[in-house]
């Protein structure tokens, strides 16, 4: 579904990615793990076109997207839950969800306000509140809900559980498991190996701007000690 092929990218002057490659298949959950500053977020920025790749190819559903502009990439069916949540603080919860909602591909099981509120009942309670008054966890739920309302075929989460209380994290993971069971492709950047092992099919360990190791959850579980040392957990 998504194929990143040998891309290089720079961010803030220096080169960050040196031939980064990865695949996400249909209905697959894939993770990017690694230390800070190794290029995980830069990879995502390159996929979304926010910091376009300097060389290499990115294809989504067989279509080259590396030269498209961010809004065009999103319109192709990639939904981003950005790092640091970044909801629209001036809009109400419901406005956050409705403002950017879209169904450009004609989804089979279309996302609606009711479905998002089903997934996150806490958002329903706060629907008229402005986004800025939500707790961190609620903002994260809102950011996920907002991405889902664009009916993406691939959902990308950048550090979605960063800085959240353990209980709220568990809510988010439960939500992602449900989305997986519904057949959504997901690319996750996170550092919580326990949760990732239970959720994801495959993993990429990113080191110095390229893939240092990749494998399935079973393979990761076997080498877990090594990998943990590698990514510094």
């Amino acid at each position: 579904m998504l194929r990143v092929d040998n891309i290089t990218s720079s961010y803030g002057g220096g080169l960050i990615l040196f031939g980064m490659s990865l695949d996400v298949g249909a209905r697959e959950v894939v993770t990017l793990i690694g230390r800070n500053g190794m290029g995980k977020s830069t990879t995502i920025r390159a996929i979304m076109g926010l910091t376009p790749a300097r060389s290499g190819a990115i294809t989504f559903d067989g279509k080259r997207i590396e030269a498209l502009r961010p809004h065009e990439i999103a319109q192709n069916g990639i939904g981003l839950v950005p790092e640091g949540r970044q909801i629209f603080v001036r809009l109400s919860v419901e406005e956050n969800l409705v403002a950017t909602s879209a169904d450009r591909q004609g989804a089979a099981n279309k996302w609606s306000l009711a479905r998002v509120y089903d997934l996150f009942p806490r958002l329903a309670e706060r629907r008229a509140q402005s986004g800025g008054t939500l707790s961190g966890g609620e903002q994260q739920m809102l950011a996920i809900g907002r991405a889902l309302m664009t009916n993406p075929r691939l959902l990308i989460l950048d550090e979605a559980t960063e800085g959240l209380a353990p209980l709220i994290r568990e809510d988010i993971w439960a939500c992602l498991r449900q989305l997986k069971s519904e057949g959504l492709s997901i690319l996750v950047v996170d550092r919580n190996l326990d949760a990732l092992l239970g959720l994801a099919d495959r993993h990429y360990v990113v080191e110095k701007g390229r893939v240092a190791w990749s494998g399935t959850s079973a393979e990761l579980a076997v080498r877990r000690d090594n990998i943990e040392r590698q990514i510094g957990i």
Partner: protein
Amino acid sequence: MKLTRTGVFTIVVALAFLAVPYAATLLGSNYVITLATRVAIYAIVAVSLDMLVGRSNLVSFGHAAYFGLGGYAVAISAFHLANDVPIFGWAGTNEALIAWPLAMFVAGFGALIIGALSLRTAGVYFIMITLAFAQMLFFLFVALKYYGGDDGLSLSTRNLFAGNRITDARTFYWICLAALAICLLLSWRILNSRFGMVLRGAAASERRMAALGFPVYRYRLAAFVIAGMMAGLAGALWANQNRFVSPDMLSWVRSGEFLVMVIMGGLSSLVGPVVGAAAFLLIESYLSGWTEHWQMVFGPFVLLVAVFAPRGLWGALRGKGDV
């Protein structure tokens, strides 16, 4: 429906506008109407500017350009008519229902060009480039000697409104007030539509909106043009009220005054810019009757508002309750 504090004050403001002609009769002075007409006209500009500055976080420092373009569109077509050389041979340009939409079109077209270029920048650069474009237009009209240059251009009469003369101050006031009401209604509808949500969302972060699949630039350009058209309508009304236009309408001082009105009244609210325009003009009118250097008193007042009412006069009136 529960009446909120905002609701109460909104009604008070509306009633104040409606009461003006009666107050003028009681006081036996038409000056009240003239002043209120000016308030209504400037309020239209302030409302349109808030759509950019308040809601979209686009600080346009050249909004007077569209105000001036609207005014000149009316004045120039009247000038040609008076000299028996109507533009393109059009005879109807003295009719408000033709001249005012024409003014809006001209201002909107100007906003389209200037916006298309300016919106590629952001922040301080956006402020400077909108200012620069407005100054270019200012000097263009200064240089156009055929249309009066520095001295401006007089209109021998106001436009006809649906064939009727509108020399009566009350009639003209009602027309301006109706125009303000329509602009407020329109801006309310726009800002609560999805288009408005995208604008307000993008005010916080353009990239965030782009990452969700929205071409922010096009939305902003559309808002810029709509705001320009509203300012153009106000310019047309202003030209009619004063039967005079001059490059002064486009000067950067005027753009600054518009910004002060919006910010002093209260950003990102529907009524705030109206209150700001009213406060600005009433204070100006009162103080300038007292001293020529009225800005010496007005300046500190604006400072006090900025310090003690950071959400503007309207924000202070409506209280902390609703944001």
